[in-house]
């Protein structure tokens, strides 16, 4: 993985909200690289600055110190190369599902038939073909997030940034969504930066888990993990039970290590 191109890089990034007495040091000395094809999950206690980090990468806010680069160039504002999926869907209720998905390509003035093709392809990819003409408020929470995902994918961004995208969904829908996002990541060779509260979610999706400290948010440790394919690939077969045990041992070892880190600093 490490020979892949670095897409996003933060260098000694600090973020301070406000000034003087009331200022909040949200991020402290963040150095992070996101390489093409990675699925980076960020874990950390509530209020530690995860969303702040995502907003900085998205270009919504400016870092106080340090740099945030995309392919070597300073990020100067939002850009369609970095797609964002929010925790609660920001689908536009005055547009149909179809129009929402077509929004990005249309803003980029792609030809009309290509826009339509893209829209159909990605609605299909999130299992929502046939829902194009529906109003967004007719959809369930999970469906809305799938449309939001399709809307971002339609722009074919270099990186997809997701801030607890499944946080508001029930456990079953969440599982389906995890599977879906895994498959989409595989199929499109996407690069994903994914914030979550849930250690299991992080471990089951990520190729790398970044653990942050409580405020001021620093990166305490990074884990390179490799459970995702085994977990989601239906054809996975363990040669014998000792191999499965070994696999599960490894999983729980990492999980406990992460939980320890998080719990020990509270």
């Amino acid at each position, binding site marked *: 993985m490490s020979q892949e191109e670095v897409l996003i890089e933060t260098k000694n990034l600090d973020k301070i909200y406000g000034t003087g007495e009331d200022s909040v040091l949200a991020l402290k000395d963040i150095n992070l690289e996101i390489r093409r094809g990675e699925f980076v999950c960020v874990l950390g206690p509530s209020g530690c600055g995860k*969303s702040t980090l995502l*907003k900085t990468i998205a*270009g*919504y806010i400016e870092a106080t110190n340090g740099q945030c680069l995309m392919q070597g160039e300073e990020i100067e504002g939002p850009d369609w190369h970095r797609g964002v999926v929010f925790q609660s869907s920001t689908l*536009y*209720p005055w547009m149909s599902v179809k129009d929402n998905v077509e929004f990005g390509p249309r*803003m980029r003035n792609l030809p009309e038939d290509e826009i339509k093709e893209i829209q159909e392809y990605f609605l299909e990819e999130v299992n929502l073909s046939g829902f194009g003409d529906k109003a967004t*408020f007719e959809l369930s929470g999970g469906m809305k997030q799938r449309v939001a995902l399709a809307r971002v994918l339609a722009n074919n961004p270099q990186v997809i940034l997701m801030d607890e995208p499944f946080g508001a969904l029930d456990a079953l829908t969440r599982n389906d969504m995890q599977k879906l996002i895994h498959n989409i990541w595989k199929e499109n060779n996407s690069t994903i930066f994914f914030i979550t509260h849930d250690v299991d979610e992080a471990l089951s999706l990520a190729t790398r888990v970044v653990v942050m400290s409580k405020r001021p948010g620093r990166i305490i440790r990074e884990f390179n993990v490799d459970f995702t394919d085994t977990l989601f690939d239906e054809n996975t077969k363990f040669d014998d039970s000792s191999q499965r045990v070994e696999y599960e041992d490894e999983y729980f070892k990492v999980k406990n290590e992460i939980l320890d880190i998080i719990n020990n600093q509270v």
Partner: protein
Amino acid sequence: MDLENEDKVENNNSEAGTEKSKTEKVLTLSTWVVILGAWYIVTKLELFSPTLLPPPTEVVTAFFKLLKDGYNGIALWVHLGASFRRLFIALGLAIITAIPIGLLSGYVSKVKAIVDSVVEFYRPLPPLAYYTLLILWFGIDDKSKIILLFLAAFAPIYIACISAVRKINQDYILSAKSLGASQKKIFFKIVLPACLPEIFTGIRTAFGVAYTTLVSSEMIAATSGIGWMVLDASNFLKSEVIFIGIFIMGISGVLIDAGLRFIERKIVFWKGKV
């Protein structure tokens, strides 16, 4: 600039409130039966002189006579037409100017710095206070009335637009930027539709204000219009015409508001559902 949005509950109440249950409908209807019944009985008992309170039957006959012969030889619909012409031209002008100016003011603080203080200055003034001036400048005819109504209608729409822009879900704008939309596209594709629900509320308020102003201005200076008809009737103690005038104003007000609400439901179909 928090990623969680708290605007969810925002519009839920207004729509739910308009759906009346059966009992409520019966209650509304009964209220009117009681009012009309009381009117009938009071006049039957001749508690007041008929010049002050004409019996309902007389008002109805007068209404048909008015329909047939008009008032002072001018047909009723000409009076109504004169009033509504003033009202709708003014309201139309207010809508097409206040929406862009209001949205721009909310969006670009420099525009707001120019327009806002002027609106804030004249808005609390009773429109009739500057009507005298408008008459001096633009004459007693329709022009001064339309300008008066326009000013009265402009403020509520303008203010609704500013507040709508301020309350817009910031994540809508951020996600549009991340999808590649330019400032201009964001304005037309995101800001404008996102503000429509509140703009419609503003338009309905503007209609109410303009309607009241219309009638008072016709009572001050006019030779036609429903307001003038009522004032003229009162000069000649034709109380049944006053009653008819008041009924027409009341009912047409309710009908126009219902029409506006109907258009609102068609255009802002997502209101209360997000």
